[in-house]
């Protein structure tokens, strides 16, 4: 365990907390992009370069952009009004629930006899990854491709709405 890892963890968790607690939605998204970069840094640290690049491309590059679009498109809504008593109690219960989960997780991790192999990271070349994806995981790759296509079409259908512009089931 070294200082770099601790630093990465601190930065990632810190930005994540700030993003979740922030009042400004835009700032939250930008902070989250930082947190995702932190996760990518962890992948790099662990020696999984390809996963790190995928993380940066998909999360920092694509998802944060899409989220920013969504934020700007839905901006006119009355979002995040002043937190009333109901909001505060919900926040409290949320933090308590999350703390309970964290406690259980940490307890379980500390109690488990985890045999860590101290050796260097397994070397994985892109060629190897490609061969694995096209070989043993070809079926999964196809399934993910179909999933992405379906999700894309579904997202377009959902976001585009009905042609007439009339909300279809307004009471």
């Amino acid at each position: 365990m070294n200082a770099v890892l601790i630093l990465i963890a601190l930065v990632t968790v810190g930005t994540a907390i700030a993003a979740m607690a922030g009042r400004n939605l835009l700032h939250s998204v930008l902070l989250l992009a930082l947190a995702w970069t932190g996760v990518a840094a962890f992948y790099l640290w662990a020696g999984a370069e390809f996963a790190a690049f995928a993380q940066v491309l998909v999360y920092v590059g694509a998802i944060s952009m899409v989220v920013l679009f969504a934020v700007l498109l839905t901006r006119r809504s009355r979002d995040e009004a002043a937190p009333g008593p109901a909001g505060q109690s919900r926040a409290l219960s949320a933090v308590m629930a999350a703390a309970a989960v964290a406690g259980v997780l940490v307890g379980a991790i500390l109690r488990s006899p985890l045999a860590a192999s101290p050796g260097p990271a397994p070397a994985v070349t892109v060629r190897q990854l490609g061969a694995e994806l096209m070989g043993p995981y070809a079926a999964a790759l196809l399934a993910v491709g179909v999933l992405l296509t379906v999700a894309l079409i579904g997202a377009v259908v959902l976001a585009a709405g009905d042609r007439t512009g009339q909300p279809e089931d307004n009471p």
Partner: protein
Amino acid sequence: MIDAAHLWLIPALPLLAAGIGALTPRSGRRLASGAAIAAMAGAFLLSCLALQRALADPAAHLYANFTWFELGDGAVRLGWLLDPLNAFMCVMVTFVSLLIFIFSLGYMKEDANFKQFFCFLSLFAAAMLGVIVANSLLLLFISWELVGVASYLLIGFWFHKPAAAAAAKKAFLTTRIGDLGFLLGLVWLYDATGSLLLFDGGHGVLESGVLGDLATQVLASGLAVPTAISLLIFCGAAGKSGQFPLHVWLPDAMEGPTPVSALIHAATMVAAGVFLVARVFPLFAADQVLAAGPLHALTVVAAIGAITALLGAVIAVAQDDLKRVLAFSTVSQLGYMMLALGVGSWVGAIFHLLTHAFFKALLFLGAGSVIHAAHHEQDIRRLGGLSRSMRTTFVTFAVGMMALAGVPFVFSGFWSKEAILHAASEWDVSHLPFYATLIGVVLTAFYMTRLLCEVFRGAPRSPAAAHAHESPRVMTIPLAVLAIGAVALGFLGTPVWPWLQSRLTGTPIPARPLLEGGGLMGLSIVLVALGLGAGWALYGRRVRLTATAPDPLAAAAPRTWAFLGDRMKFDSLYAATLVRLNAFVAALADFLDRRVWGSAVGFLARFAEFTGVVNSEFDDGALNGGFNAASEDIRRTGRAYSRAQTGETHGYLRTLAIAFVALALLVLLGGVR
């Protein structure tokens, strides 16, 4: 002393300025513009030092490569390159950009988005300098795309004008078509050679060993691999440099602010394509060793260049918009440069590129000064008589016009054009490009005379022109500096003292006596005189009196004139073919979907419906009685459970969390296995 490893500083400075500009608030006009100009001045000084270093040993290619990142067992390497070619380009781009930045201080003074403008300008300059100093085609491509983005932002700077927004989109998409070819070429090149570095100690793609290997590979169709790769790369160059048939974006891009036109259409973006071909010239020339090849890449380059040179010049004759005349003359001059590359004289192309950058920037900025003074009136029929009210602009514009027209001996355009004519006349494949350039010389002199007479002679033909007065110093001083450059630069490359040529190639080039090519030079002088004389006869002797009076040529041949004025209907042609083809395919797909597949699906659905009806009749009559009773119980239970379904997402999530904790605690503490 600056070395190749420090070369990244040149693009980094304007990039830094762009960053500063992006972060300053809207009111920080002085900070943003000051940072941009200071960074450009710094980059100019660095470029001068780099030029000095490169000229110390002109034959050498100094480079500094580094590893960008490693991926598994492979590494992606980038690098910086320093040789006379890109050192000259750096000096020219930074110098002209610096003057344009200063000019913009005056031109954009009243614009609300002043600070963004300087931010975009800096970004553009940084990207362009990145293209120049890259020693890796990958790095070059990255910067190349950045140039595209920045040009989109700049051309569409007045995005509230629909024409500007459309022009920005058109420029972006048209150049993107070319860039796709460029990218494919890069992928193929990497596949064939395993490297995208230009120079890399014997392994770079421009070095003789790799090129020799490449030239031996021939495709099944008989096309040599280097030819195919070169032609793909040329697609990118043709897109950026506005070559036929991708030239349509360039005139529309005049919707941007005039300093942008000067920057994009004189010194930088359009020059990038010519620079790219000159940069990878050894690759383009690699197939010359194959005598049997059906097609040489450079032949295509020369043909496209010749077509573009002629086309641009012809269309420019019939334009009535001040900036569009200049735009089409740029198209035509870029054609000259490509032609020079194609006939093998990349040195001549770069020479013309450098001189053209100066006098065309001068012309655009002069046009900007006119437009600024005349309250954004840019129809030359409604201007006129400005030679009295705008003395400095008139004199400098006239210098630029004569340089572009190629008035002999004094002006730089004459010498650089002479170099191209000389190279074209010696090309042994075909003489057609040479004849095209000769016609182009006449037309260029003609339409520039027309422009000058219409704008500056006679009486003002609109209130805006009548009230015009000279622009402030901050705008006229850059004009004067550029005018000096437009004259002086020509003497660096005259046939009797080919200093620039010998420095660019790194080998001393013997001087030709002026009279050796005397016939050619005499011909060129006669042609220029012919063009000037015709222009003067039609537009100078009898000046236009009113804005609505028809053009003398339009009166003579109205249909041809309208055809040319409509830019030979290229835009309509594309609208009629490409756009309509697209619409046709879409309609066909729609028809197939609706009628063919739709009716098949509809038939199946009918069939299914029919069997369903039969089925349900059977169910209702025979089976349902027992089930109805049983399902009542289920319905009641469901109602009870449905109360837990509040529809509130948070509730579900919270329940999940609590259930997880409870289960985990059960496992951990209770010892359930």
